[in-house]
């Protein structure tokens, strides 16, 4: 049977919560077993990305190139681990591949590249370009008479790139209501806190001024994220939407939360063990 959008079954909120905790556990296991990963940002952004993937972006591993699938584009390719964990969980590739993460010759590279594994739609390693690709995809969808959506996950650090604002202006100009961006605003970039390295706040006001509908929420609060996505994916919209998700680096792991380190995290066995025990306790408490 060929896949179509009506076959997509979104997770409900409790299921999504369980799922994000399981994904965190999986990412920590991968980071530990494979010697390291960009983990802090994967943990801050996983709730936003998982909400999109499991509830809003219609798509299926059986038809990763279906024309009417929703597109989910990852702009900061360094969040690869979060996307790989989701794609493996959803069956886009065998879960075993996760243990080859960033090995020479592995399809799972340190940053995501289009054409490496199904479900990775774009190459996001060079920051600030993918919102433009999303604008192009949304324009192409309109030209083809298709109604699927284009979701783009960005980081707050990459808002420094001027091209992001070229893309933001054009998305509103072309009235791309099918485009929904999410920013994992964890407040850090490579050299330190975004407020100190290059302050781009207030981001919400900037996007509003560019003609976007902005939902500013706690990006690790799944009901809030989903309520925002509910509003921004209403039919017949003609303005691009932004979920500005205020998140915590390393979310879910006490010794990483808000810590400026772990941009590239090398976990030892005891750290991985502690992280996974905390996640288990949190999951059990729900």
């Amino acid at each position, binding site marked *: 049977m060929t896949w179509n959008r009506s076959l997509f079954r979104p997770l409900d909120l409790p299921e999504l919560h369980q799922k994000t905790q399981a994904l965190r556990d999986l990412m920590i296991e991968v980071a530990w077993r494979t010697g390291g990963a960009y983990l802090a940002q994967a943990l801050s952004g996983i709730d936003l990305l998982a909400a999109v993937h499991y509830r809003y972006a219609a798509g299926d591993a059986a038809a990763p190139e279906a024309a009417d699938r929703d597109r989910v584009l990852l702009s900061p390719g360094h969040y690869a681990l979060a996307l790989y964990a989701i794609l493996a969980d959803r069956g886009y590739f065998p879960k075993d591949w996760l243990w080859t993460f960033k090995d020479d010759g592995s399809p799972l590279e340190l940053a995501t590249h289009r*054409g490496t594994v199904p479900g990775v739609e774009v*190459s996001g390693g060079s920051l600030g*370009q993918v919102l433009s*690709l999303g*604008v192009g995809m949304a*324009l*192409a969808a309109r030209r083809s008479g298709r109604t699927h959506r284009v979701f783009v996950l960005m980081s707050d650090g990459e808002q420094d790139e001027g*091209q992001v604002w070229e893309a933001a202006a054009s998305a509103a*100009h072309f009235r791309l209501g099918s485009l929904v961006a999410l920013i994992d605003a964890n407040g850090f970039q490579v050299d330190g806190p975004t407020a100190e390295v290059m302050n781009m706040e207030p981001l919400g006001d900037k996007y509003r001024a560019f003609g976007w509908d902005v939902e500013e929420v706690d990006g690790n609060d799944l009901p809030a994220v989903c309520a925002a996505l509910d509003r921004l994916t209403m039919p017949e919209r003609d303005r691009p939407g932004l979920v500005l998700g205020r998140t915590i680096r390393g979310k879910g792991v006490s010794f990483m939360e808000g810590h400026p380190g772990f941009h590239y995290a090398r976990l030892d066995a005891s750290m991985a063990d502690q992280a996974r025990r905390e996640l288990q306790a949190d999951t059990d408490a729900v």
Partner: protein
Amino acid sequence: MEDLLLAQPQEETGPYRRTLVAVGEARPEVVVLGADLGNSTEIDAFQQRFPDRFFNVGSAEQNEVDIAVGMAFEGQVPFVHSFGVFLTRRAYEQVCVQVAMHGANVKLVGMIPGLTSRLGPTHQAIEDLSLMRTLPGMTVLDPADATEIEQAVWAMADHRGPVYARMMRREVRRVLDPERHRFQIGKAVPLAAGRDVLLVSTGLVLETALQAAAMLRSEGVSAAVLHMPTLKPLDRECLLDLARDAGAVVTIENHLVTGGLGSAVAEVLGEALPLPLERVGLRDTFAVPGTPEFLFRRYGITPEAAVSAARRAVTRKSPR
């Protein structure tokens, strides 16, 4: 060698503007992107004919190139326009990591080649061929005249993969006979046979090469002429065949001698057939503003300069 040249060169207005509309009629997947230079890049007629397939992104070339890539990923065939300088300088990383790295089916059209801009060095694309030629998988074109523009636009639309093409606008010379010339990507065009020296040109300086060959002939030097509208992939076999017969080579280009035609020919000769080579073009300098005629004289991209280069190359030949 078939005579592909018109007996009397002509001048025509806007061959690109006209051809783009014709291609649009026949190829519904072709879309056009512009960057606030509608009339200046001759895409205004396409816009009027196909408003739903035309996207003006404003003067934002980085966004323009990546929007085109997004559209190409979804099956459209975008033709992306600006002046050559802006597409290749300002949007270089976008062209590199999104267009070239993915082999995206995007056609980059850089208007006003080399020294033909009146706005000075900010607008003179003198290293665009170099920048584009070095990108893996990029096809690079520099058509010579109206005939070749008309044919190259169709070839670009039908070619699957990224292309950068220099483009001329407004009054454009017609030198090649449209009835007999057949432009093909990757095919060089022998235009005159000769046994003493081979003149190789790309783009609009084809006429410079032809005039130089005639001047050399009048002084008893037999000069072959090879026109290479495709810089990449370079027609290596054809170049080597003619170079072997002539024993010395001169390149002529509306560009720096580094990175463009001169370098491409030097690479082939250096690897396969070391011969005396002289290169005519800009030499490690930006140009001042001015009319094309003034600039070509000032920077020595003239028939006279090509003749001198040919004499030097012939002198350097080892006795046979």
